[in-house]
C-alpha cells in the first residue's frame, strides 16, 4: 500500500511538472532557416534572418527581418521583437557572413552555434561577397525562398564536390584543431541568380584571402580524397610532344572527371618542415577540344604526363599563395603534429613553421575508362 501511494504521488508530481516543459508546437514557432551576419557600425552585428511562418490560407510565408546590435544573441532578441511568432533556430540550415564581417573574425559565431543543441551540425556556412543583407533582400524572380535556395545550392555543389564542404561540424573541427584552417565557399548575387564565386581562406577565425572557384579543386585535392565532380583544365600546347599532335595550338582545353583520387602525405624533414605529397588520380576525359585519340596507349600516356605537369604547377601555386597569406587550409600542421612525437605544436609555433614549409608535389595521373560517361 505504501508503494502504491508512492506511485500515486510520483504520478501527480510528474504530470504536474509535465506542464513545465516548454512546448514548441510546430505551427506556433517562426522557423529561422537562414541567418546572415554583416558588420554594423562600431563593430556591431547586423543580422538578417529568413523566417518561415505558416499562414492560415495553407501557404507558408517567408519574411526577412534585419536587426542591429552589439552581439549576435542581442540581435536575435531584437529580431524576435519584430516577429509575429517566437523564433526558433532548430531548423537553421545556413549561416552567411558578409566579407567585412568575416575579415573581423567568425570565431564567436561558430562558438555560439555549437553551444546551441538545437542547431544541426550539418548546417552550412558560407561567405558572401559584399554584404548579406542586399543578397538576401533582393527579390529574385525565379527563387521562391532564398533561405532554402541557398542551402540547396551549397548542398548540391558540396555533394557533387564542386566546392569545399563547409558544414558546421567540419568548420568547427578546422577552427579548433591546431594546424588547420577554415575554408568556406563564397557566394554572390549574379544578376538574378546566386552564384558560387570562389573560396574564402581563413587564418584562425579571420578571412585573409580568397581563391577562385576553379582553384577550390586544387585545395580539395590536397585536403582530402575525391570521388566525384568534374574539372576543366587548360594544358599548354608546347607541353605536348609533337608525336601526339602536329602543329599544337597554344592551349588545349580539356575536362576530366576524377573517378578516384588518393592523397598521401609524408613528412620528410622535421626541421624545415618538408612534405612529400603524392596524389594519385584516376580520371576519365569527358571532353577535349582537339582531336587526340585517347584510345591509343601512347598518346594517352603523353596526355597523362602533360596533365600531371599542369596539375603540379597549379597545386604548387595554390600552396604558395596560402603560405603567403598564412592560411593552412590543407591541414599540414595537423599532419605534422600527429606524426611527430612530442611535437607540442602550438598555434604560434606552427604559423612560424608554415611560412618556411616546403611541399614537393607529385602527381600520378592515370586515364581510365575513356569510353563512355553519363
Amino acid at each position, binding site marked *: 500500500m505504501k508503494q502504491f501511494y508512492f506511485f500515486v504521488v510520483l504520478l501527480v508530481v*510528474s*504530470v504536474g511538472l*509535465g*506542464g513545465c*516543459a516548454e*512546448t*514548441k*508546437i*510546430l*505551427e506556433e*514557432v517562426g*522557423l529561422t532557416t537562414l541567418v546572415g551576419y554583416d558588420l554594423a557600425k562600431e563593430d556591431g552585428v547586423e543580422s538578417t534572418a529568413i523566417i*518561415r511562418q*505558416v*499562414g*492560415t490560407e*495553407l*501557404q*507558408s510565408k517567408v519574411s526577412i527581418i534585419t536587426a542591429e546590435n552589439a552581439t549576435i544573441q542581442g540581435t536575435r532578441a531584437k529580431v524576435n521583437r519584430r516577429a509575429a511568432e517566437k523564433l*526558433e533556430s*532548430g*531548423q537553421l*540550415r545556413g549561416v552567411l557572413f558578409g566579407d567585412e564581417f568575416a575579415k573581423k573574425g567568425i570565431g564567436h559565431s561558430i562558438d555560439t552555434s555549437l553551444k546551441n543543441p*538545437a*542547431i*544541426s551540425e550539418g548546417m552550412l556556412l558560407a561567405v558572401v561577397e559584399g554584404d548579406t543583407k542586399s543578397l538576401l533582400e533582393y527579390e529574385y524572380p525565379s527563387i521562391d525562398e532564398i533561405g*532554402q535556395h541557398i*542551402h540547396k545550392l551549397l548542398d548540391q555543389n558540396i555533394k557533387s564536390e564542386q566546392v569545399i564542404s563547409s558544414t558546421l561540424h567540419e568548420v568547427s573541427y578546422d577552427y579548433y584543431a591546431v594546424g588547420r584552417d577554415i575554408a568556406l565557399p563564397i557566394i554572390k548575387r549574379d544578376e538574378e541568380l546566386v552564384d558560387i564565386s570562389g573560396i574564402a581562406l581563413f587564418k584562425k577565425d579571420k578571412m585573409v584571402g580568397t581563391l577562385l572557384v576553379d582553384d577550390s579543386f586544387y585545395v580539395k585535392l590536397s585536403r582530402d580524397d575525391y570521388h566525384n565532380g568534374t574539372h576543366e583544365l587548360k594544358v599548354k600546347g608546347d607541353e605536348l610532344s609533337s608525336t601526339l599532335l602536329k602543329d599544337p595550338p597554344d592551349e588545349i582545353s580539356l575536362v576530366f572527371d576524377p573517378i578516384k583520387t588518393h592523397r598521401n602525405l609524408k613528412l620528410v624533414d622535421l626541421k624545415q618542415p618538408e612534405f612529400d605529397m603524392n596524389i594519385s588520380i584516376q580520371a576519365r576525359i569527358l571532353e577535349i577540344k582537339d582531336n587526340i585519340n585517347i584510345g591509343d596507349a601512347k598518346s594517352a600516356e603523353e596526355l597523362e604526363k602533360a596533365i600531371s605537369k599542369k596539375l603540379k604547377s597549379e597545386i604548387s601555386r595554390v600552396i604558395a599563395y596560402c603560405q603567403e597569406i598564412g592560411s593552412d587550409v590543407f591541414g599540414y600542421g595537423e599532419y605534422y603534429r600527429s606524426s611527430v612525437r612530442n611535437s607540442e605544436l602550438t598555434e604560434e609555433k606552427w604559423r612560424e613553421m608554415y611560412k618556411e614549409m616546403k611541399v614537393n608535389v607529385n602527381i600520378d595521373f592515370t586515364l581510365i575508362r575513356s569510353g563512355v560517361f553519363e
Partner: protein
Amino acid sequence: MFKRKSKSSSNENQASMDSEDAGEAVSVPTVGADFIRMVSDAVHHTADLVVKPIPPNLTLIYIDNLVDTVTLNKHILEELLEQPIESPENIVSILSVPQVKFAQKNRESVEAMMDGCVLIHVEGYAQVVLALIPTPESRQVSAPENESQVIGAQIAFNESLSRNVSLIRRYIKNPSLCKEDLEVGKQSKTSIAMLYIKDVASDQMVTTLRQRIADLQIDSVLDSSILEQLIDDNSLSIFPQMLLTERPDKVSAEILNGKIAVIVDGSALAIISPHSFIEFFQSQEDQNLRWQTATFLRLLRFGAVVLSVFLTPLYVAALTFHYEVIPQTLLVPLSESRALVPFPPLLEALLIELIIELLREAGVRLPTKVGQTIGIVGGIVIGTAAVQAGITSNILIIIVALGALSSFTTPSYMMGNVIRIIRFPLILLAGLWGFYGIMLGFCFILVHLLRQTSLGSPYMAPFYPPRLIDWRDSIVRLPLPFTFKRPTNTRPEDEDKYKPEPVNPEKNEQKVK
C-alpha cells in the same frame, strides 16, 4: 475488508467439502426404491430427472437433457427388454454402448449422471452400471476465423473437449502424448485436459501447471481465456504470458516443441505454455512458407509492432517539442496541414486514436454485413471529414491508420490488443515530455517485460537471457536443417527435434560416390 470476505468464504468451502466427503463414502443401496430416493435427493428433485423402472428388477435413472434418446432407445432399452437380467455383469455383456462402467459409491454415480450417463440399478446389488451416452451437442469443426492462414490446415477447434483432443491426436499419433484429466470449478465442474508428450515436455513444468490448476478455488471456469488469467505467472500484467490459439496445428507444433497444452471443455481456444514474448509474433504459417519468405514476413511483423507502438507518439513529440528533427522537405506539408487544427498535437492524436478504436470496436460488435459498411463509412467519411473540418491533419490520419493496420498483423489477437493499448500511455508521455517521455515509457515497458516469466521460464527469451541457438528461429527463421533444437525456454527433456542433417544432402551423396 477483502481479507475478511475471503476468510468467510473459505470457511464455507471447508464445510461443504466435509459434507461431500461424507456423501462419497456412502455406498449404493441394494434396494431400488432407496437408490431412487438417494439420487433424487442428490439432485434436489430436479424436474428433468427421469426414473424408469423395468420390471422385474431393473431401474434406469438419467437426466433427460443430458442423454441421447436415440441411443437410449436403440442400444439400451431394446436390449434390456429382450432378455431377463440377473446381475450388473450381465448388463455389461449385452449393452452395445462403448463406455460402460460400474460404480459402488453414491457420489460417483450421481456425478457420472451429470456427465451424461444412464444409471442402471439391479435390485439386490450394491453397485450400479453407468452407460455413457451424452447428447452429441457440438458444432462441426470449421475453418479458423481469427487466425486464418493461406498455407496450412484450414481447421479450428470447436467447443467439444473430446473433439479437440482428437484433432491433436490426429496430428501426433505418438503413444507418449499424455492426456491428463482435471476438473475445475466447484459449481461448473468443468473438464480440463492437459496434453504433453512424456519425455519431451519438462516434468517440472508439467507438475507446476498441474498444481496451479488443481489449486484453483473457484466456482466456475467458463472459458480457457479465464483459466489462462487464473494460472499465468503475473495476472496483473497487461501482457499475456500464455498463448490462446484456435489452431490445432499450432497446438501440435508447440506440444512437439516441448510445451504443454490445456484444453477446457466448452471453449474453442487451447492454452499453450510456456510461451515467450517473441513467440507471440510468430505465426504457424512461418513454418509452412520457405525460409526467406518467412523471415521477411517475420521482420515485417516486428517492424509493424515498432511502428504501431511508436509512430503516433513520435509524431506528437516531434510536433510539440522537437521541431528540429523534422526533415526540411516534410516541414512545409506538415506545418501547412497543422495550420488549421485548433488542438495541440497531443489532443489531436488522442482524438484520432480514439476514433480508430471506436471504429474497430464497432466493427467487432456489429454483424459481419453491417460491420463492413460501418468500416467504410467510418474510415472514409470520418477521416475525410475530420481533415476538411480542420480537426486533424492529413499526415496524422495516415500515421494513425498505419499504426492501427500494423497492430493487426500480430497473429495473436490478445497480443495485438496489447500493442494497440500501450500506445496510449506513450502518446500521453510524448505529449508531456517529448522524446524523453517516450524513452521513459519504453524503458518502463522493457523493464516490465524483462521481469515477466511464463510458467517460470524467462519471458524475453531468447534475447534475455541470451540463448544464441534459439535466435535461429526468433525474429528470423533459418532453414529447417538449422532449427533442429527445441526452444530452450521449454527446458525439454529431449533437446533435439531431429538429427541435424547436412544442408544439401544431394551434394554429399555425390561426394560419397
